[in-house]
């Protein structure tokens, strides 16, 4: 089938769904929905509808961004806009069904607003006017919460695969690379390296087998946007991978996901299957002569597996320990073949960049940070969520406008950004803009987009201890500055937090940190001192109190400290019959 035929078919199905005489009930079932009980709600809903003999189409969709309102469901009746019900539970789902589905009114059910050109339902506000939505500019997440991730036709009807079709039918591979370069897109996996330039490294490498690897390890605690994209709209990633493959002359794509994250894994594999069935993956895509395949590869639990050379080791089925560089992946990658590693978000922008053009993308954002920031907001704010906003918002706007401000009776004390290897910022940092370079200059990074907000109830030493414990736990052990350094740093931070610090501890940490920075093999060790450095810069007083006065200002450090035992045996022979747990 050529693309036009597919598109027509998809449009027809989409129009039918939107004009369906049976109501359409969409339920957010990304991880945020899952954790707040969306699947239990769906089960209760199905039972109810069967009992009451009500006909309805239930669609599992992704995350619309308002995680605080999950489980969030919306009901679309024929000829009416979608009406959104927030914080639905197994206890109030019957009320919603009775009131709205059966009696066509709302009394007690809690609603957020409406969406749709049919206009307001019961004078509800337009959902687009909520600050958490109004400030958003959704590109990678444009379909999230609106289309069913399990239905490729819904993706196509909403403009999906038209970027790929445009690239294949009207552009040379080099034009695609130019377009991505001109868009100013920078990698969203942490280092913010320009994506177009990275792609160009692969162009000259010899084929025929070349890989584009998509990194969805997403080990950063506090980050959930990569998994969010895969759960909400996996086809946008597949289309991005295909475009990258065409641009670079690659033959295969691999999506690398951590074992156990079943939502993202299953939805990605289902999407691959559907794309294959329609000929969007495989040989001679849209009759262009371009061949491309995509498969999913799973890793075990390892943070360092997200580092690009360790990732390739894991794809090959080994311990995820980084390789020495050079050779670089574009010359010698997975199985020795030329490879390119890109983050999920970076690739997911590509379809819209090709469809709408580099100028459109680069007009969004600020300075050298073009496009959007996909913020995973969590912690002590009223409205944690997954917000895609133009680059350049201030942290103040993030906390107040997106986050709905601090929780009751709490004031801002710290922001932890960019994952455990990022940094912490103080309350005086709220004028800083989300801009890769500005945040780096402030001693934090934007990284993959996690922003954890801490209130005055948070002790900086206690949080630092958790971050360092994480980095120590995750050190892969290959190079000794990181392996021993992280252990040493943890020992000292634990000492401080137990009010047992020794004279010279602060200097000792700096000295160990310096060695790690200059001597470690990969970013894990090189950046591993970051959380401590930024914490002692911005929260010197917290450290002083623990060290000199032996007290914790918030009392957090008096609580029992429960963290996993440091693990990862570095070398151990296999002896059958000996239990190794």
């Amino acid at each position, binding site marked *: 089938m050529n693309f036009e035929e597919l598109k027509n078919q998809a449009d027809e199905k989409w129009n039918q769904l939107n004009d369906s005489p049976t109501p359409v009930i969409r339920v957010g079932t990304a991880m945020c929905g899952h954790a707040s009980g969306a699947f239990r709600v769906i089960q209760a809903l199905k039972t109810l509808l069967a009992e009451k003999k009500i006909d309805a189409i239930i669609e599992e969709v992704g995350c619309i961004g308002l995680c605080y309102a999950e489980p969030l469901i919306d009901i679309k009746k024929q000829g009416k806009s979608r009406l959104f019900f927030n914080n639905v539970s197994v206890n109030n789902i019957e009320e919603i069904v009775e009131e709205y589905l059966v009696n066509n009114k709302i009394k007690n059910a809690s609603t957020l607003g409406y969406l749709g050109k049919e206009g307001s339902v019961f004078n509800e506000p337009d959902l687009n006017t909520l600050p958490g939505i109004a400030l958003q500019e959704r590109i990678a997440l444009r379909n999230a919460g609106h289309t069913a991730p399990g239905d490729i036709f819904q993706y196509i009807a909403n403009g999906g695969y038209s970027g790929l079709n445009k690239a294949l039918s009207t552009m040379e591979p080099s034009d695609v690379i130019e377009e991505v370069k001109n868009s100013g897109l920078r990698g969203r996996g942490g280092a913010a390296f320009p994506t177009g330039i990275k792609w160009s490294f692969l162009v000259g490498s010899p084929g025929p087998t070349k890989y584009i690897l998509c990194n969805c390890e997403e080990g950063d605690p506090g980050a959930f946007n990569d998994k969010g994209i895969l759960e909400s709209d996996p086809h946008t990633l597949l289309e991005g991978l295909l475009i990258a493959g065409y641009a670079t002359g690659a033959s295969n794509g691999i999506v690398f996901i951590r074992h156990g994250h079943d939502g993202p894994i299953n939805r990605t594999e289902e999407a691959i299957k559907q794309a294959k069935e329609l000929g969007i993956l495989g040989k001679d895509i849209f009759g262009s002569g371009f061949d491309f395949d995509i498969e999913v590869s799973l890793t075990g639990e390892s943070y360092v597996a997200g580092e690009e050379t360790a990732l390739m080791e894991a794809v090959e089925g080994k311990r995820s320990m980084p390789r020495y560089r050079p050779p670089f992946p574009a010359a010698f990658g997975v199985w020795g073949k030329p490879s390119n590693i890109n983050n999920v978000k970076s690739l997911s922008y590509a379809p819209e960049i090709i469809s709408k053009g580099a100028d459109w993308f680069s007009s969004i954002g600020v300075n050298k940070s073009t496009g959007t920031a996909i913020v995973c907001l969590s912690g002590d704010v009223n409205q944690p969520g997954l917000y895609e906003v133009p680059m350049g918002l201030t942290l103040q706007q993030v906390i107040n406008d997106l986050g709905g401000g601090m929780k009751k009776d709490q004031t801002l004390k710290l922001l932890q950004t960019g994952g455990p290897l990022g940094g912490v910022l103080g309350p005086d940092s709220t004028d800083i803009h989300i801009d890769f370079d500005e945040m780096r200059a402030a001693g934090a990074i934007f990284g993959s987009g996690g922003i954890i907000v801490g209130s005055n109830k948070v002790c900086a030493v206690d949080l630092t201890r958790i971050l360092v414990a994480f980095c120590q736990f995750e050190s892969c052990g290959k190079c000794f500055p990181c392996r021993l350094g992280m252990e040493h740093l943890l020992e000292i931070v634990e000492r401080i937090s137990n009010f047992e610090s020794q004279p010279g501890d602060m200097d000792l940490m700096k000295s160990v940190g310096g060695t790690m920075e200059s001597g470690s093999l990969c970013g894990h060790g090189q950046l591993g001192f970051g959380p401590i450095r930024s914490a002692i810069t911005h929260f010197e007083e917290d450290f002083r109190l623990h060290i000199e006065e032996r007290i914790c200002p918030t009392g957090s450090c008096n609580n029992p400290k429960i963290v996993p035992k440091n693990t990862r045996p570095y070398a151990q022979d296999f002896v059958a019959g000996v239990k*190794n747990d």
Partner: protein
Amino acid sequence: MPADNDTLRKQIIEAIASQHRPTVTVLSSLLAIQDSIGYIPDEAIEEVAVQQNTTVNAVFGVASFYPNFRFSPPNKHSIEVCWGPTCHLQGSSNILQAVLNYLELKEEGDTEDGEFSFRFNTCLGACSQAPVISVNHELFGKISPDESINIINKIKSSDPHHK
């Protein structure tokens, strides 16, 4: 379930052979075995080494590296509590304490009665709902220590609905 040696080997070989993803490696085979029988018995290390044409030490090196692998059969129900920074700030250490007390455990491990296997999780990916726990792979967010115990208590002695 400890099975006799022949059955176990059969299950292992079957798990290795029935992987649906095209690329089969040491790691993918180990994951498939753990998904199928719940742990990595010694026989699995040996079989994977044979199938992948490598040494038992190379296979064991991979298995021992990733903390999600276990080397003895798990208990009936799996409990994971997130200790990631967001969950920590939202009180996960109280949950950890309550759960460990309830399970009479001091650290990661299995309860004596054969009911629960407990693990830490570095981030369950639902930070916007912190604190989060996972019980038989179902996530529960914005949860208190008492609610956690209730959920765990409720499933005690019931059949696991997940493997």
